């Protein structure tokens, strides 16, 4: 089966700085991949190689078998750039018609209006749109060419929580219907809600790659959180500002058994899987 994205040994240098250093990336249809990394890690440069905006210095990247940047690759792809801005004289309806024409399609404006909550905005010129409104239009434009791959660079920045949830739901439906998504986001919960697989890059290199389930299985760690009446045993960590103590453990049952055995008075016990950001921080540290 053709991969939505197949990248091998990608390298991109700017002068003496290597922004992307030998990164491999694969994304199958019907899969959502979260691309994570700190600021300056090389995420945006990597996306520019995938979208064909920049040529690679080494390595290859294909979109459904077509070289990135080729007309066929661009036809298969919808993109929401990190910073979106559109001519203020134009309405969203006109932009959607323009983007659809570039894809050689008829605009499916009604579907996009409903999906992205553009009812009030669709025929207004974009001068004076808020950041969140511009972002919603940018998201609608990414999906207006019926793409097989959506490349979304921090797509929900500036969106209110209702719009974020709507976006997550829509993206999950898109992936379930066979679409592929490459997503960068600083919202860990969004990555968790949308993506099946994660790739983390740092200083231009891929430092982690795998499905979220694999990472959880590797870690098999739960977080035990509780409030302890003084005196607390020495082996428990210090309380946070709310008085709760948090303990990461591969065997949460053993922790609770020990508390009971030692006669520690505790309440408000919570046991939950470690949050994605904590798993990644631990794995990154181990890597």
């Amino acid at each position, binding site marked *: 089966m053709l991969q939505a994205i197949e990248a091998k040994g990608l390298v991109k240098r700017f002068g003496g700085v290597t922004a992307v250093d030998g990164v491999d990336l694969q994304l199958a249809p019907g899969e959502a991949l979260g691309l994570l990394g700190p600021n300056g890690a090389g995420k945006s440069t990597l996306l520019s190689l995938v*979208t064909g905006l920049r040529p690679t210095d080494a390595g290859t990247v294909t979109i459904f078998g077509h070289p990135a940047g080729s007309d*066929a690759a661009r036809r298969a792809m919808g993109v929401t*750039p990190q*910073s979106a801005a559109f001519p203020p*004289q134009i309405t969203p309806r006109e932009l959607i*018609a323009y983007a659809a024409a570039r894809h050689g399609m008829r605009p499916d404006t009604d579907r996009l209006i409903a999906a992205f909550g553009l009812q009030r905005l669709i025929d207004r010129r974009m001068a004076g749109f808020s950041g969140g409104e511009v972002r919603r239009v940018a998201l609608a434009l990414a999906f207006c060419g019926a793409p097989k791959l959506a490349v979304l660079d921090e797509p929900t920045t500036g969106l209110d929580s209702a719009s974020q949830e709507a976006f997550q739901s829509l993206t999950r439906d898109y992936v379930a219907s066979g679409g592929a998504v490459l997503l960068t986001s600083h919202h860990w919960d969004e990555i968790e809600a949308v993506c099946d697989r994660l790739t983390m890059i740092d200083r231009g290199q891929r430092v982690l790659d795998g499905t979220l389930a694999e990472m959880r299985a590797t870690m098999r760690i739960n977080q035990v959180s509780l409030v302890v009446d003084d005196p607390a045993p020495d082996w428990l960590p210090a309380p946070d500002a709310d008085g709760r103590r948090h303990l990461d453990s591969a065997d949460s049952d053993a922790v609770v058994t020990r508390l009971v055995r030692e006669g520690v008075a505790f309440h408000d016990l919570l046991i939950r899987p470690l949050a994605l950001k904590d798993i990644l921080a631990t794995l990154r540290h181990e890597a």
Partner: protein
Amino acid sequence: MLKHLIAELVLSARVLLRQPGFWVPTILFPAMLYSFFGAQMADGPAGIYALASFAVYAVLGVGFYQFGVSVAQDRETPFVLWQHTLPGALWLGWAARIVVAMGVVLAAVAMVLLAGRFVGGIVPDGPETARLIAACALVSVPAVLMGIALGSAASARAAVPLSNLLFLPLAYLGGLWVPPVALPESVEALSVWTPTRAMGELAWAAVDGRALPGRYLVVLAGWSLLSVAVIGLAQSRHRRAMFG
């Protein structure tokens, strides 16, 4: 491809025509200036030369403001980056801009001709009008190239003041506001090498029915080549910066 070209044409036209800041100076100002000054300064047989001069001035405005300013401003917006991610040939966007520019040139020249008729009382006959419009179409090529060169080389912030700085003095130096014979001797010596003088000479020859003066065609070709060289260098620099 036709669908794409039409989409680019519609987008270009909407963006430009919904900006009074663009169409007032480019379409209306030349006719207004002609009405206030050109029509008053030159009447009788000289009147048609003034009309031709202000028609050339209108063409120059389209080149400098539609291309000089908008190319510089567009280049720095994320919208252009997003357009590069869409399918379709990128040159169609430029083709659309040029077609829309031709429409704006026609509108601006038509306004000057209307001002000539109703304010200056200058009514060129059919062949004169046709030759003048043809001359304007011809001089729009170097005007547009010069505008693109300016927009490619200047930043978005610098493009407007730079356009103003070049546009008005060039119009004067080229004899578009004051007939060349009335220019001071030192200015006249400089004038013959300016693109605006060459454009004016072509327009004056056109309304006279004379052959286009070869010397000024060469001058315009030189300015066009220089503009193409500047465009090539500046665009390659920007491509490296944005897409390199």
